């Protein structure tokens, strides 16, 4: 391998950091320059992420630990210093982040980047934080990345200002600051018991924790888990999410769709690594809680989707349904279900991201809050600062705007409700068929009640999403004589179409994508490859030494 390729793993963090810092130095007047740099950065990030995914996937034909790519920051061996680790899951999340980031950034060029200052810098720092959090192999480093991306997201949620955003932002920041403190308590308790913060090292030490310290360890893990569940928006820790997401500007809300997935990623990574089947007395610690919390989230999200009169809130609640579905599917702790759950995670994130951006275009031709009942309209705040931003400048407007917007809306509905022919259907179908029909003879020993409950919830949540989206679609696209046909520019509709095309590609290429997801799930349930890969990397630099505390 060349020298450059060795350092490929650090680029997802360094690129946006440098570009974001450069953004701060360039004056806001040089819009074209700043836009060009930021889009070029995200395109490069996408390239790096896809290259990483390809490399990690190609290596996996060798040993199990070879599919784990470790980058030692400062070249210290793994248990002592922080490492960046790319395995299949991380690489997949990186690709998802950068694709969504690219779409949001292109979308924001049309008008939203002018709604406040330093939009691009904050956006790039958010990407840096997300990429770092997906790559890190150290628990405290994960906390630092969380804080970095949250700091950027605090700025982004307030982007565009206005009373509604500040009110929602206040709650969002307060909730996340309190959550960060829980995160710290959890991390320090785990450190106090095990004496290490490296995730792979933790996984080797947890089976050896003596019985009298186990309570403390599990307390720490539970507190840490609560912090992740708040980020993922799992009921009953999710009341902040719909209002914060619906108040944020559309490109930001689209990015937030992946921030809630970060909490799921952390649970998926740490729960299976630290409390997998091989972790001794604590194996599957808290699994039932995760399952019930996930299913409760689906219920809450499904009711919320039906109850919301505003499409942005509807999209916020569909984030909850998506989180809950992934969480409940992970908590079944079956390899066969986790693979489709990952597929669902990617597909629903793309769908929700597209929906958040589409909503703004749909709402453009209407008076603010037109679909909120007249009774509640006053309370809704008609003095939206966005109105000041209505652009009049020239731009290539697309023909047949309503038809294209309508088609995109149908696409989002299909993905989110899980109807054929788009990827949402394949994801749900694969999850359910894995729950009920494990391949191989002799496994028909009855279906557990949990699987029945999950089946019901998945179908009902799909139905309620369909009902709510249909209602919103009829109200937005078909009725309302007072509406004017919105003027939609190519640069605004293109990202939405690209995201939807990505889900269509996932449908057409379902077999290789699903194979990748299944391999990811299999690697997550056999963490020895990850542990060995981290603790012995890179080969030929001497055996790793154990920390002697």
């Amino acid at each position, binding site marked *: 391998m060349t020298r450059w390729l060795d350092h490929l793993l650090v680029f997802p963090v360094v690129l946006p950091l440098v570009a974001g810092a450069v953004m701060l130095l360039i004056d806001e007047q040089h819009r074209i320059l700043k836009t060009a740099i930021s889009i070029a950065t995200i395109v490069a990030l996408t390239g790096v992420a896809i290259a990483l995914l390809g490399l990690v996937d190609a290596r996996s034909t060798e040993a199990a630990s070879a599919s784990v790519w470790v980058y030692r920051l400062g070249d210290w061996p793994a248990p002592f210093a922080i490492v960046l680790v790319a395995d299949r899951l991380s690489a997949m999340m990186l690709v998802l982040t950068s694709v969504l980031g690219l779409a949001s950034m292109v979308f924001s060029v049309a008008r939203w980047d002018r709604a406040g200052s330093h939009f691009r810098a904050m956006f790039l720092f958010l990407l840096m934080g997300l990429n770092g959090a997906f790559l890190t192999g150290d628990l405290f480093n994960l906390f630092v990345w969380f804080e970095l991306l949250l700091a950027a997201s605090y700025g982004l949620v307030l982007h565009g200002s206005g009373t509604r955003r500040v*009110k929602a932002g*206040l709650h969002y920041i*307060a909730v996340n*600051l309190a959550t960060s403190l829980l995160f710290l308590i959890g991390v*320090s308790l785990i450190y106090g018991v095990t004496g290490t*913060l490296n995730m792979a090292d933790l996984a080797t030490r947890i089976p050896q924790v003596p019985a009298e310290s186990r309570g403390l360890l599990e307390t720490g893990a539970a507190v840490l888990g609560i912090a992740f569940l708040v980020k993922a928006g799992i009921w009953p820790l999710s009341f902040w999410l719909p209002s914060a997401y619906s108040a944020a500007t559309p490109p930001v809300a689209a990015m937030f769709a992946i921030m809630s997935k970060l909490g799921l990623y952390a649970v998926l990574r740490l729960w299976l690594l630290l409390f997998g089947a091989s972790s001794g007395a604590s194996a599957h610690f808290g699994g039932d809680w995760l399952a019930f919390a996930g299913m409760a989230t689906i219920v809450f999200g499904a009711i919320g989707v039906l109850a919301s009169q505003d499409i942005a809130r509807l999209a916020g609640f569909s984030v909850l349904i998506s989180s809950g579905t992934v969480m409940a599917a992970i908590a079944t702790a079956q390899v066969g279900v986790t693979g489709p759950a990952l597929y669902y995670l990617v597909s629903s994130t793309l769908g929700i991201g597209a929906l958040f951006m589409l909503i703004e275009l749909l709402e453009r031709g209407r008076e603010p809050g037109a679909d909120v009942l007249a009774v509640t309209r006053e309370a809704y705040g008609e003095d939206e600062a966005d109105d000041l931003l209505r652009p009049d400048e020239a731009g290539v407007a697309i023909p047949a705007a309503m038809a294209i917007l309508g088609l995109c809306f149908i696409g989002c509905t299909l993905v989110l409700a899980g109807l054929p022919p788009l990827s949402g259907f394949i994801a749900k179908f694969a999850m359910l068929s894995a729950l009920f029909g494990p391949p191989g003879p002799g496994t028909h020993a009855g279906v557990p009640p949990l699987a029945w409950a999950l089946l019901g919830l998945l179908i009902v949540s799909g139905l309620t999403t369909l009902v709510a989206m249909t209602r919103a679609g009829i109200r937005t696209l078909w009725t309302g004589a007072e509406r004017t046909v919105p003027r939609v520019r190519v640069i605004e509709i293109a990202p939405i179409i690209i995201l939807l095309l990505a889900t269509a590609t996932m449908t057409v290429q379902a077999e290789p994508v699903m194979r990748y997801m299944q391999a990811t799930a299999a690697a997550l349930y056999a963490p020895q490859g990850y542990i060995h890969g981290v603790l012995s990397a890179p080969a030929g630099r001497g055996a790793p030494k154990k920390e002697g505390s």
Partner: protein
Amino acid sequence: MELILSLAIGTLAGCGVWLLLRPRTFQVIMGLVLLSYAVNLFILGVGGVRLGMPPFLAKGQTGSVAQFADPLPQSLVLTAIVISFATTALFLVVLLASRGLTGTDHVDGAEPEA
């Protein structure tokens, strides 16, 4: 020493949680500050409470874990302090913006109906 430390953490955390649940934004921010103090002390505590122990080896000395304070929690606390300081400052700005835009210091941006 352990007793004093745990009482201090408990008092700070208790006051912090109570303030965090109050309806005024300034009380919330004070609650977050107190909670972060409690958490910082807590992190320092998980490394083991040892008085007068150096965190590093002196030159030419051979180390024994029993004679040294754990340096890692101290560095974690440093990071946590910096981060909570920055986020508190940011929250303060949002608090002021909310006060300016809504004209009230209630966390929901509006006084509850009496």
